C-alpha cells in the first residue's frame, strides 16, 4: 500500500512538473497506424503467426553470418516477474530446443531493475561469449545507451518494449497497445446500444503499454456515444477489482466492462454473479481462467491479446541472423489476434493453469504442457 501510494504520488508529481517532456499516450498517428495493422493481411507461413510480419520490409544480415555453429545466444531479460513473462520465457526456452545450431542460451534476469539490466548487458557484451544479443528492455529510455553500446560489438535483437535507437538489427513486437484497446472497445460498441454504461478497469497509471490501451479504448467508446461511468485502477488485485465492481453495481447498471488486462477479469465477473446480476458484455484477455468462465457462462465477450508467442520470434530471428538470412525489420510487427466466440473453443484448455496465456503458440513445442504448468491430458 505504502509503496503504491508513493509510486502514485511520484507519478502524479512527475506529470504535474513535466508536462512538456511527458510521453504522449494518445497519439493519433500511432492510433491510425495500429488500426491499419490490425486489418492488414500478415506475410509469412499461415498458422505460425510468430513467424509472420505485417510490414513488408526486410533487413539484410549477410554481414552477421557466423558459419556452422553451435552458436551462443545471450538474452538480457527485464524480468520473469509476472505470469505473462513466465509463459513467454517458457516459450523461448522451448523454441531454442528446436534449433540444433543454437548450442547455448545464456539468460540473465534483471528482476525488473533498469540498473541491473544495464549492468547485465555490459557484462554479457564484455564476456565475449555471445554471438547475438536479445534484449527485452525493462524501460525504454533507461536501456537505450546500453543497447547502443552493445550494437557496436554484436548483432542485437530487441523485443516487447522498444528502445530509442534504430541500431538493433530488428525490433520485434506485436501491433501494440492502441491495437489492444481498439479491439476490445470496438467489440463493446458493436454489442451495446448507444448511451450504454461502460465501466473501464485499469491496472495502474503511467505504464506506456497500458496507457495506450486505455487511450485507444476510451477514444472508441467516446466516439460511439457510450457513457463511460468510470475508469478505475485495480492494481491488478482480484479483491480490489471485485470490490470496485460491487460498488459500481450498487449505484447503477453496467452494460459492458472494458479491461486493459485480463488477469482480474474473473474476479470482476464474479462480482456480477455473486450479487445476482447478468454478466454484461465483457472485454478480457487470453488468460485460461477468463476463457473458461466465458465458455461456461456463454458470455458475449472478446479477448484481445498481447501474444506471448512473440517470445519465440527473437530466437527465430537470431538463428536467421547467424545464418546471414534476411529478417523482417527494422521493425518486425507480429499479428495481434483477438480470441472471439468463433474460435474460443480452440483456446480453452482446463488442464492449463488459470493465468496461462492461451495465445502462446506453444501447443506444438517440446515439453508442452508440463513445462507451462499444465497437466498432460489422458
Amino acid at each position, binding site marked *: 500500500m505504502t509503496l503504491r501510494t508513493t509510486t502514485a*504520488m511520484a507519478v502524479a508529481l512527475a506529470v504535474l512538473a513535466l508536462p512538456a517532456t511527458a510521453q504522449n499516450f494518445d497519439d493519433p498517428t500511432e492510433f491510425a497506424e495500429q488500426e491499419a495493422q490490425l486489418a492488414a493481411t500478415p506475410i509469412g507461413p499461415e498458422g505460425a503467426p510468430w513467424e509472420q510480419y505485417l510490414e513488408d520490409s526486410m533487413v539484410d544480415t549477410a554481414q552477421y553470418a557466423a558459419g556452422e555453429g553451435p552458436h551462443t545466444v545471450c538474452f538480457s531479460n527485464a524480468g520473469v516477474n509476472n505470469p505473462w513473462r513466465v509463459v513467454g520465457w517458457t516459450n523461448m526456452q522451448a523454441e531454442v530446443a528446436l534449433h540444433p545450431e543454437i548450442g547455448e542460451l545464456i539468460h540473465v534476469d534483471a528482476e525488473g531493475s533498469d540498473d541491473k539490466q544495464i549492468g547485465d548487458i555490459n557484462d554479457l557484451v564484455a564476456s565475449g561469449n555471445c554471438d547475438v544479443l536479445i534484449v527485452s528492455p525493462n524501460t525504454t529510455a533507461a536501456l537505450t545507451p546500453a543497447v547502443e553500446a552493445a550494437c557496436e560489438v554484436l548483432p542485437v535483437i530487441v523485443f516487447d518494449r522498444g528502445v530509442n535507437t534504430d541500431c538493433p538489427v530488428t525490433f520485434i513486437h506485436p501491433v501494440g497497445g492502441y491495437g489492444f484497446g481498439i479491439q476490445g472497445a470496438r467489440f463493446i460498441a458493436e454489442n451495446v446500444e448507444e448511451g450504454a454504461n461502460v465501466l473501464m478497469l485499469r491496472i495502474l497509471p503511467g505504464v506506456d503499454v497500458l496507457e495506450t490501451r486505455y487511450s485507444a479504448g476510451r477514444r472508441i467508446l467516446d466516439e460511439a456515444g457510450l457513457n463511460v461511468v468510470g475508469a478505475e485502477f485495480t492494481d491488478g488485485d482480484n*479483491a480490489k*477489482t*471485485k*470490490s470496485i465492481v460491487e*460498488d459500481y453495481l450498487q449505484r447503477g447498471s453496467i452494460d459492458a466492462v472494458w479491461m486493459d488486462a485480463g488477469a482480474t477479469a474473473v474476479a470482476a465477473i464474479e462480482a456480477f454473479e455473486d450479487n*445476482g446480476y447478468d454478466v454484461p458484455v465483457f472485454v478480457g484477455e487470453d488468460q485460461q481462467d477468463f476463457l473458461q468462465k466465458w465458455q461456461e457462462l456463454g458470455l458475449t465477450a472478446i479477448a484481445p491479446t498481447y501474444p506471448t508467442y512473440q517470445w519465440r520470434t527473437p530466437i527465430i530471428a537470431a538463428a536467421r541472423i547467424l545464418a546471414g538470412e534476411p529478417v523482417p525489420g527494422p521493425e518486425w510487427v507480429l499479428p495481434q489476434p483477438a480470441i472471439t466466440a468463433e474460435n474460443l473453443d480452440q483456446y480453452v484448455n482446463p488442464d492449463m493453469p488459470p493465468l496461462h496465456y492461451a495465445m502462446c503458440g506453444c501447443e506444438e513445442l517440446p515439453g508442452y504442457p508440463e513445462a507451462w504448468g499444465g497437466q498432460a491430458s489422458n
Partner: protein
Amino acid sequence: MTDAALPRPRRLSRLLRVNPIWLVLLILIGAIVALNPDFTEPQGYMNFLRRAAPLCILAAGQVFVLTSGGFDLSVGSTITLTVVGASMLLYNNEAATWWVILAMLGAGGVIGLVNGLVVALLRVPSLIATLGTMITVSGIGLMWSGGAPRGYLTDGFRAAGRFMWRDVPVIGLLPAALLVLIGGGAVLWWLMHGTNYGRLLHAVGDNPEAARLAGVPVARVRVLAFVVSSLSAVVAGILLGGFSGVSLDVGTGYELQAITAAVLGGTQLLGGRGAVGAALGGALTLTAIFTLLNFLGLPQPVREVVQGLILISAVALAVCRRDA
C-alpha cells in the same frame, strides 16, 4: 495494563471513554450512506462486511503480537502462501477441501512458531525476524508455484469467503464470511480478554523484565502470540482466496493494513496495550475508508492523498485519547 485492572469508571465518564474509532466508523458509514443510500440494503452492507472480514481477523491476530511488544510483518506472505498452496494442493479435487484447510493451518502454525522462537529465544528484533520470514515465505510460494498460479480453488474451499445465503429472514443476505468473522473474532476476543493468557500478554508487553521477575513464562507467551497471528493470517487467506480467487499478490500490503487497523483501534505500537474489539473497529474503519473513496470517484492520486490524510488524523486521534 489491562482495562480490567483499572478501577471501574462511573457511567458518564465511561460513555465518554468509548473508543473514538467507533465514532469515526459511524461518521464514515454515514458519509457512505449519504453518497449511496443503497448501502442500507443488505446487498450494500453485507458485501461490505464480507469484504472487511479478512482484514478484521488479520488485525485481531496482529493485536496479539503488537500487545506483546513486537510486529508481525510475515502475515501478508502467509496469506499468499495459503491461497497459492491451497490452489496447488486442491487441484480441482473438491474432496480434498478439509485436509487442505488443516494443512494450511498447520503451515501457519509452523510459520508462527518459527517467528516466535527466533524472537523469543534468539532475541532477534521482531521487525527483522518477521521481515526475514516474510521474504522466505513469499520465496517458498514463488518456488512452489513457479511464478504463476498453477491450480484453481474449489467451490467448497471458496465458500467461506464467497458464499452468501439468500432470502434469510430479517437480514436478507448472510455471507458465510460474516459467520467466520463472528466466530473467529469471538475466539480471539476471549483469548485476549477472557483468559489468564491475555493478562500475561499485556504484562509481557508492558514490561518484560518485570513480568519475568514475577514468574511469567515470557518466551512461551511471546511465541504463542506469533502463532495466533499466523493462524489468523491463514484464516484471512482462506477468506480472501474465497472472495476473489487465486493470485500471487493476494496478500501484498496486508501486513501494513493489519498494523494500521490495530493502531486505529488504539493498540500501542510498543506493546502493553491492545484490544481485539477495537482492532475489529479499526479494520472496519479502514475498509470503510476504501469503500468511501470508491464511491467518491476521485482520481487515483487524489484518492491516495485523502486516504493517507484520513489515516494520519485517525491515528493521531487515537494517540491523543491515549495520552489524555
